[in-house]
């Protein structure tokens, strides 16, 4: 169908506008670039990694990085105490880190948004009960609570992810509830009620899209926090179990060699640092781009 645009300046699409404001921040673009590299690394791990993550070479234990004396070109970042290539393990480890981030964030976003919507929308006693439970979860130091949960459920990557998701939950519930409470008094919600919408429709189709901006930002930041907490749990032996090439677990396995072979702990640590930093920078950029109050410069 032919459509005549009557105004000379075509209004920017929402996505175009978002991209414009996102690229205003250098940090966000760098963060996005690094994040894309990590994602590609995870996807094409078998092509990038020169060795299999669990392949051991008994003759090459604690080999230093390739540029140092005694290094071997096929082991770019050296080998660990049992002769596995650290670079290959890091590349495969990216899969676990991203997997953890995705699972934890989707779990806590979905649950948190639904609970937050119900709390904000229903109000009254439902709201009070839900928010007090969330306050109780928040009252525990998050890593400690996750540790306790994993200790109860048994140490494994899956249980660690569920524990971290639960720890992250209150942030999403509070954020959603706060947005819902400001949005639900607005006239367009009344308009929808007059139009005959039932409450599930009001909640999910009328109100929710207007609450998404802060949630997206919180989700990115929770993504990096999840990676960090999974690494911490792995380091404490409560997360992914050896020989899984998870970054935190790699750190834990190598800690006794910290004075003899610095590369076994440094590179997994750097991998965590760089990934988390990149995602946080991206999250900040997202917030600036999605927050209408900061937009009009």
């Amino acid at each position, binding site marked *: 169908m032919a*459509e*005549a*645009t*009557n105004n000379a300046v075509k*209004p920017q699409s929402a996505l175009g506008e978002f991209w414009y404001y996102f690229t205003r921040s250098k940090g966000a673009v760098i963060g996005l670039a690094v994040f894309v590299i990590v994602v590609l690394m995870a996807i094409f791990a078998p092509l990038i990694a020169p060795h299999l993550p669990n392949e051991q070479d008994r003759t090459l234990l604690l080999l230093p990085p390739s540029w140092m004396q005694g290094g071997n070109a096929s082991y770019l970042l050296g080998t660990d105490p049992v002769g596995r290539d650290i670079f290959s393990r890091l590349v495969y480890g990216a899969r676990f880190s991203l997997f953890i981030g995705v699972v934890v964030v989707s779990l806590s976003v979905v649950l948190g948004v639904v609970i937050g919507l119900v709390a904000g929308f229903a109000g009254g*006693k439902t709201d*009070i009960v839900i928010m007090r439970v969330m306050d109780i979860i928040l009252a525990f130091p998050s890593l400690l609570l996750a540790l306790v949960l994993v200790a109860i459920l048994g140490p494994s990557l899956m249980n660690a992810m569920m524990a971290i998701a639960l720890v992250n939950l209150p942030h999403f519930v509070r954020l959603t509830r706060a947005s819902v409470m400001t949005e639900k008094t*607005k*006239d*367009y919600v*009344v*308009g*929808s*009620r*007059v*139009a*005959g*919408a*039932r409450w599930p*429709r009001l909640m999910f189709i*009328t109100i929710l*899209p*207007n609450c998404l901006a802060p949630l997206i930002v919180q989700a990115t930041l929770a993504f990096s926090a999840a990676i960090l907490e999974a690494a911490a749990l792995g380091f404490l032996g409560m997360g992914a179990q050896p020989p899984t090439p998870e970054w935190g677990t790699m750190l834990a396995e190598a800690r006794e060699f910290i004075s003899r072979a610095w590369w076994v702990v440094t590179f997994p640590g750097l991998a965590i640092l760089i990934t988390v930093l990149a995602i946080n920078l991206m999250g900040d950029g997202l917030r600036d781009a999605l927050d209408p109050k900061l937009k009009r410069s």
Partner: protein
Amino acid sequence: MSDLLFEAKGVEVTYGMSKGLFGHGRPGVRVLHGVDLAIRRGETVGIVGESGSGKTTLGRALLKLVPVSGGTIRFDGQDITNLAPEAMRPLRRRMQMIFQDPMASLNPRHSIRQILTEPLFLHGLATDRRDAERQVRAILDRVSLPPVTLERAPHELSGGQRQRIGIARAVLMKPDFVLADEIVSGLDVSTQAQVLNLLKALSQEMGLSMAFISHDLSVIRAVCDRVTVMRFGEVVEEGPCETVFDAPQSPYTRLLLDAIPLPEIDDGWLTRPAPVLETAA
């Protein structure tokens, strides 16, 4: 069946009342003190009063958008005062509302097409997408907006266009009653006239009953058959438009009438003492 469409008797609304978790709640503030209002079929009733007089609350109480703490509201002979939300739904189609600020009343994340077609599906007024599209295009044409408007988001339209969308959304449901809450107070004078004329024409075509809330008596006079004057949550005066405007019984109505700006400039307007009203009855 009587020709009364809406009949409100002794309506009371209390805001901020809470039960409290442990039994001791707050009593709340009563903003309507037993208001009576009757709206006949095909009639436009104006509700006037200063800010805080309870006119918006009264309108919303009629549509059951705020909880009523006392009195009865009958719609088309049926008592709807304590009707459950689910029982209220079929009646919702028959009572529509146009809002003061169309920017706030149109969902910013939805396109105009979504805003207009959704209510049709909610009430089963459209059988499929094409039928809905046809109805929506017809109504857009009626409110003099081009079909391209459907692709737009609310923030891409002008104030007058947005208010036309608000009107289109209300009349699309083929209602019996429309509540128009200060619908022209955010528009400039020439747009006001267009919007009012459109609404008047539509109400005559469709035989609509309307409650027209405004603080502007000249607007009320232009569109209404009868007028209800409110102050402090009570009805001060009620009657046919001409009677109330030509021979106001209450001093408060007199005061409101005197507040209409006149086209000729009165030399002494600055030095003249402000009109004072003794405490309300």
